[in-house]
């Protein structure tokens, strides 16, 4: 970085003036800066447009995708401006070719948690891209540069730019909507509002994407340029670039210095002679006189300042020299502290004083970033967990786990295996012969459901009717998860149960006994005996 070739005038500027300088800088090199950005931005927009055509229902996701990668694209205009400002001409093609090499440093932060939290990223980009700082060094550098409210100025400028983008986007959409919408519709945005949840129109989604791309293309280089001049201003004041430039201007090439040496010696000698000849020192105003102190009265040095110790005067001439030195060091630039006037309340209480003297805590953006980082990681973990849960049926292990959880009660019927008598069919026959037909059929049906749920892992729910249970059993049989013979018994038992329960139509003894025998063969004691 050759600061003596800096193309901007160096002088102390406020943050607002530094941001304003960015507009002038961008105005001077707008062609290369905008073209460098557009050369990268347009392919991203084209990709988003293609994805929108492919899946218009996810158009919002493609919009966010383009927005997400914007910080990396901003490095191309920064490359242009950072070289132009030091007098090196750069074309947009060179910037685009150099862009892949400019991506290092900060990219992970900018594409992850920093994307949502780092509104002042334009101010940090030069640290990563131009200074090449990484890790802790970059962090310390950002902390040093961000003091003196510079970081907060960058953040607020980022917020303003984001709002400008939204305003431009809405303006473009409204403009299109006025001409495209039906004349009867007063709201120009109704063309783009899809409140009904229907399949979105690809054309309107593309128009929305176009408006977004236009607003970003206009604002992003402005944001980059302004943050860059803010960064330059901060460095210039931190590192006293103005002094360095003056010194470099004084420092002439060797030959010139050799030629100028006699003249300098002559001037120095003349100066010494003038000093020793008793020419009075420049008259300085006496403190406290209205004529000589129009602006400010001298103030006391701050507490804790180490003033040089004074020894006793060894000779009478020393008093005059000391007085002259004191007058010299009384100059505001040389006395080592600055007097600042401010308004304050007359009757402040002690608590307010304490609050006032408390050192101003620099708004720790790193702490905020760390909090958002933790939140982002927690959100990411939660999102992954939700996706895994949402699509758990696609994972065989989850499927097995789901099957392992069987219902214990359906429609008020206790279908736990232990709730059934040891010999179910013996009990059914006993109830039947005892005239308790309904109880016999209820036990037969309950036992059938219990076996299907507990042994064949049939997933039944509270709202399943008899027909639903049979339908699920048939599906299980089609998947070879339920034996055909067991399904037939279930059909037979359900049929008997339906007729008895809802039509009081009791089956003949033979039909019931046949069903009991088949049940025993498939679900009961007979099956256990043969097994």
């Amino acid at each position, binding site marked *: 970085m050759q600061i003596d070739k800096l193309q901007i005038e160096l002088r102390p500027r406020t943050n607002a003036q530094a941001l304003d300088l960015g507009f002038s800088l961008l105005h001077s090199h707008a062609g290369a800066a905008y073209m460098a950005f557009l050369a990268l931005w347009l392919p991203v927009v084209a990709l988003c447009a293609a994805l929108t055509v492919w899946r218009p229902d996810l158009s919002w996701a493609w919009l966010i995708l383009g927005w997400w990668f914007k910080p990396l694209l901003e490095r191309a205009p920064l490359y242009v401006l950072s070289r132009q400002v030091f007098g090196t001409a750069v074309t947009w093609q060179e910037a685009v070719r150099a862009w892949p090499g400019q991506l290092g440093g900060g990219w992970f932060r900018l594409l992850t948690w920093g994307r949502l939290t780092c509104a002042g990223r334009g101010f940090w980009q030069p640290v990563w891209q131009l200074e090449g700082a990484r890790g802790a060094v970059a962090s310390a550098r950002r902390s040093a540069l961000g003091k003196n409210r510079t970081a907060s100025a960058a953040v607020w400028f980022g917020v303003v730019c984001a709002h400008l983008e939204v305003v431009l986007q809405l303006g473009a959409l409204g403009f299109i909507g006025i001409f495209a919408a039906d004349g009867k519709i007063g709201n120009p945005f109704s063309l783009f509002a899809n*409140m009904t*949840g229907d399949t979105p129109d690809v054309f309107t989604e593309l128009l929305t994407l176009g408006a977004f791309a236009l607003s970003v293309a206009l604002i992003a280089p402005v944001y980059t340029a302004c943050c860059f001049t803010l960064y330059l201003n901060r460095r210039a004041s931190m590192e006293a670039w103005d002094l360095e430039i003056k010194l470099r201007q004084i420092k002439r090439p060797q030959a010139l210095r050799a030629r100028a040496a006699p003249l300098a010696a002559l001037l120095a000698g003349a100066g010494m002679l003038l000093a020793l000849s008793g020419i009075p020192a420049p008259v300085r105003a006496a403190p406290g006189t209205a004529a000589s102190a129009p602006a400010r009265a001298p103030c006391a040095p701050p507490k804790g300042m180490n003033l040089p110790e004074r020894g006793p005067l060894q000779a009478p001439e020393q008093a005059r020299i000391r007085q002259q030195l004191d007058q010299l060091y009384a100059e505001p630039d040389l006395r080592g502290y600055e007097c600042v006037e401010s308004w304050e309340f007359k009757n402040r209480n002690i608590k307010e004083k304490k609050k006032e003297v408390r050192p101003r805590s620099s708004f720790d953006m790193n702490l905020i970033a760390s909090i958002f980082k933790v939140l982002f990681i927690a959100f990411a973990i939660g999102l992954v967990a939700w996706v895994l849960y949402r699509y758990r049926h696609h994972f065989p292990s989850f499927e097995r786990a789901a099957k392992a959880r069987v219902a214990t009660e*359906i*429609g*008020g*019927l206790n279908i736990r295996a232990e709730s059934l008598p040891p010999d179910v069919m013996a009990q059914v026959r006993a109830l039947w012969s005892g005239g308790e037909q*309904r109880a016999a059929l*209820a036990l037969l*049906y*309950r036992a059938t459901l219990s076996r299907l749920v507990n042994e064949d892992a049939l997933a039944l*729910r*509270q*709202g*399943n*009717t*008899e*027909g*639903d249970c049979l339908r699920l059993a048939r599906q299980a049989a089609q998947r070879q998860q339920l034996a055909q013979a067991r399904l037939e018994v279930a059909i037979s038992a359900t049929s008997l*149960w*339906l*007729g*008895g*329960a*809802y*039509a*009081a*139509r009791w089956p003949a003894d033979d039909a019931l006994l046949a069903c009991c025998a088949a049940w025993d063969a498939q679900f009961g004691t007979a099956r256990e005996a043969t097994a």
Partner: protein
Amino acid sequence: MNDNTATSAAPAITAERLNQAIGIVQRMREEIRSAVIGQQAVVDQVLACCLAGGHVLIEGVPGLGKTLLVKALAKTFAGDFSRIQFTPDLMPADVMGHAVYDMKSQSFSVRRGPVFAHLLLADEINRAPAKTQSSLLEVMQERQVTIEGESHRLAPPFMVLATQNPLENEGTYPLPEAQLDRFLIKVRIDYPSADEEEQMLRMVTRDRVGDGLEVSQVATLVKPDTIVALQQLVARIRVDDAVAAYAVRLVRATRDWPGIAIGAGPRGSIALVRMARAMALTSGRDYVTPDDIKAAALPVLRHRIAVSPESELDGLSSDELLLGLIEEVAAPRG
């Protein structure tokens, strides 16, 4: 458990009569299906609605065979069929009829409107203004028409099959919830499957002029009186107390269900049981099972509930909410 008290007083349906009724219903269904390709569930629901003595609102985009279905149903019995194309300038007199002064006899004579039929197709009912809709809905409820102060009873069976297009909103007059309640069921016709569409294509393009499906091959099976007899038979289908309680549970659940702003009223429970009875007969049974209630719940309740604005914003439809409700409400076990 117990027999329904309402049905216990009525004489039991004999097996012979039941089999005869089942046979007629099966043949009517087959005849309708010979004209309407696919849409089996819709055909069953409309047929059941006819047997239950209700009116049906059919919703679907144009070209899915709504009119064809109605024509085929009308052709299966030798009743009168009329069709009204609802338009914004349709007047109640165009539907009901009006009195005309006869110069010869020097008196007023009543000219009956198209509503005097057994089967009335009200095409695109939501295109007519509220005044005309209301006059029709009054007929649906009272089954009589008043012209110049004189009441005219409609000959049974009387059934209105109204259609509406869900896509177009401009220039339409949506039916209010209270008027929707007059329809026993609301049926949604969806697109046919690929096989069904191919079959329809072959049928329409084989030795035919034009692109319309015909109902000329549908045989006329019964007289209007037979339909009335079937409706009376349906009214005597057994409904167990547990099944009736299940219907009430379902309807009451709509009143507290999250996402439903306005639930179904008591007319919903009545309609549910009526429809379930008819569906039991179409399934060949003389008693209602919980499956009949469950199958009837969606067409009976979908137009009797109002989805909350929050659910609408979430993209949830009345069908999705009802399906979730039906799955959660415990079914009876006798």
